[in-house]
């Protein structure tokens, strides 16, 4: 009983920005890194794995190869393979890269996954139309944390 009330409460606040969540425009980058969790909680690596491989979520494999995701076909080769990313980069650096890679790698081709401003002709997803009031970052704060939690596990 007590648990279901908790769940209810969680569901209701699911879409509102919780106190601990950092809005895209408020993220603080230091040398391309972001120190604090964007959602205020820790990430779920299993979910992050989904986000990285899923075409309609992170679609990171459009550009990166990940051996751990051997079940996902057609991995791209625009960016470096992500194998070993958890050894090359700290959690804070990975958070910065996923939130806004251009802070770490100026002019990077990699999209900024937690950003809502400063675009030229942003659209409404892949419709080609102008954005409407559902416009938000490519990934939610929690999805970013999940992806970071997954990347941390990628050791060579």
């Amino acid at each position, binding site marked *: 009983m007590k648990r279901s009330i908790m769940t209810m409460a969680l569901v209701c606040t699911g879409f509102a920005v919780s106190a601990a969540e950092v809005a895209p425009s408020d993220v603080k980058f230091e040398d391309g890194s972001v120190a604090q969790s964007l959602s205020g909680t820790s990430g779920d690596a299993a979910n992050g794995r989904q986000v990285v491989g899923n075409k309609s979520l992170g679609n990171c494999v459009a550009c990166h*190869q990940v051996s751990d995701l051997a079940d996902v076909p057609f991995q*791209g080769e625009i960016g470096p393979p992500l194998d070993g990313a958890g050894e090359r980069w700290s959690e804070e650096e990975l958070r910065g890269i996923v939130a806004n890679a251009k802070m770490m790698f100026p002019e990077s081709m990699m*999209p900024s996954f937690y950003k809502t401003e400063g675009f*030229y*002709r*942003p*659209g409404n997803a892949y419709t080609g139309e102008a954005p409407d009031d559902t416009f938000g970052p490519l990934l939610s704060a929690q999805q970013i944390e999940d992806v970071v939690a997954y990347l941390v596990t990628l050791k060579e």
Partner: protein
Amino acid sequence: MKRTTVWTALMSAGVMAAGSAFAGPVDDTLIVNEEIEMVTHTDAPAHLSDALDEIYSGWHFRGTETRAMQADDFDNPGMIFVEQAQDAWDTAEGSEGKSCASCHGAADESMKGVRAVYPKWNEAAGEVRTLEMQINDCRENQMGAEKWKYTGGDMVNMTALLASVSRGMPVNVAIDGPVQSTWEQGKELYYTRTGQLELSCANCHEDSYGKMIRADHLSQGQINGFPTYRLKNTKLNAVHARFKGCVRDTRAETFKPGSPEFIALELYVASRGNGLSVEGPSIRN
């Protein structure tokens, strides 16, 4: 310090990994109907020399079977639409009771070489004209007929006919004189990162051609092969429809086919292919 070291190590690892999977342009030669020798690969035009050394038709980035289909008109589904356009060419329409043939005679004679130099400046109208604009100008002002939809079936078929009679001739659009400001505008757009993914044409087609982006093998995004018959949607595809698709895929609000932005972009992209053969209707996936 740490970051630079890691980054250097990573760059070399990346190059090695890419080396195994990297599939650049295929080394192959296109001769259509054992007759028309196509230039599908040549030195980049002078205006592009700071960006690219060589230019390649999109043909080099397609699979063996797709490439083979384009070598024989009997296997090229795009030629069916060329035939349809040939019928339209000979059919009188509009208040003047004229067909294209009434003024221009046989398309394979009078239209030879036309595709290769469009978009181009029209002095009387004081504007840069795409082939589509010129076709619609003829329809409205010479034939007294309705305009065709910019990327509609009738229009794209007619551009296929006009391309087909110029096949093998080098693309040679002018970039200076009265078109220069339009060309500059197109160039600016080519390098502008659009949409929520912040990707420019150059990010994909200049910096990354030859690489895979998900399941797609990136070409240089040349338009010498347009219109293209795409196996994916089994019809001819116009240049501006392709531009629209690529811009949409950056999660952007696109420009419209026939818009001033796409006209400028077409002129600029066409000029990046100066020296490649006109190839339309080509086959792509």
